[in-house]
């Protein structure tokens, strides 16, 4: 069980370092037309995400991980 978790962590760290090592990934400054779209923003539906985070926070044992939202609740 513990070993499983360590493996998962190692895998993600490996993935992250691979990505940062690849300096040739990415686009030129003038090639951001698609990435500049509202629907391509990482948080393209902030209202929805905040509501969802609140619902799942109060109904499940896990929360967070995406970013910092505001205000927990006394429900969990």
């Amino acid at each position, binding site marked *: 069980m513990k070993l499983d978790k360590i493996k998962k962590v190692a895998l993600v760290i490996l993935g992250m370092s691979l990505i940062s090592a690849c300096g040739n990934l990415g686009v*030129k*400054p003038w090639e951001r037309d698609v990435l500049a779209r509202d629907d391509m923003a990482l948080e393209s539906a902030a209202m929805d995400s905040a509501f969802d985070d609140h619902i799942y926070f109060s109904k499940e044992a896990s929360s967070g991980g995406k970013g910092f939202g505001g205000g927990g609740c006394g429900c969990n």
Partner: protein
Amino acid sequence: MKQLYSLALLMMLIFSAGSHALGSNSDQWIDKLDLGQYKNKVVYLDFWASWCGPCRKSFPWLNSIQNKFEDKGLVVIGINLDSDFENAEEFLQSVPAAFTLFSDPDAKWADQYKLIGMPSSFVLDGNGEIRHRHVGFKKSDIDAYEKSIVSLLNELK
């Protein structure tokens, strides 16, 4: 005939200034960009694209400097980097440009000028040398931008 044409166009430009037609009706697009033809002019090259927020913000100012310093020898050239020209057209409907425009869909000029952000601006002196450059557009920096233009205009004989 020519005069009639001109008059009609002038009327069109005047009456469309507040609406949406201006951007797509003026003859600003040049087919070939040859900086050599601007000897003894100060050239302000502005690389822009329709999807770039600060570019939108910069256009009224670009219009105003074109207007203000044209007589003194300033040429503003907006190099559009939209790969889809329609997007540039659409942009100009809501944000009109009153300066020369050039379409660089394959980003040959952008590559050559090694842009690091959008918009990117280069001010070229009367000899075609790049003397100033800046990335982005902030209203609070307008004075500095204008100062750099004026100093180069003053160098022109």
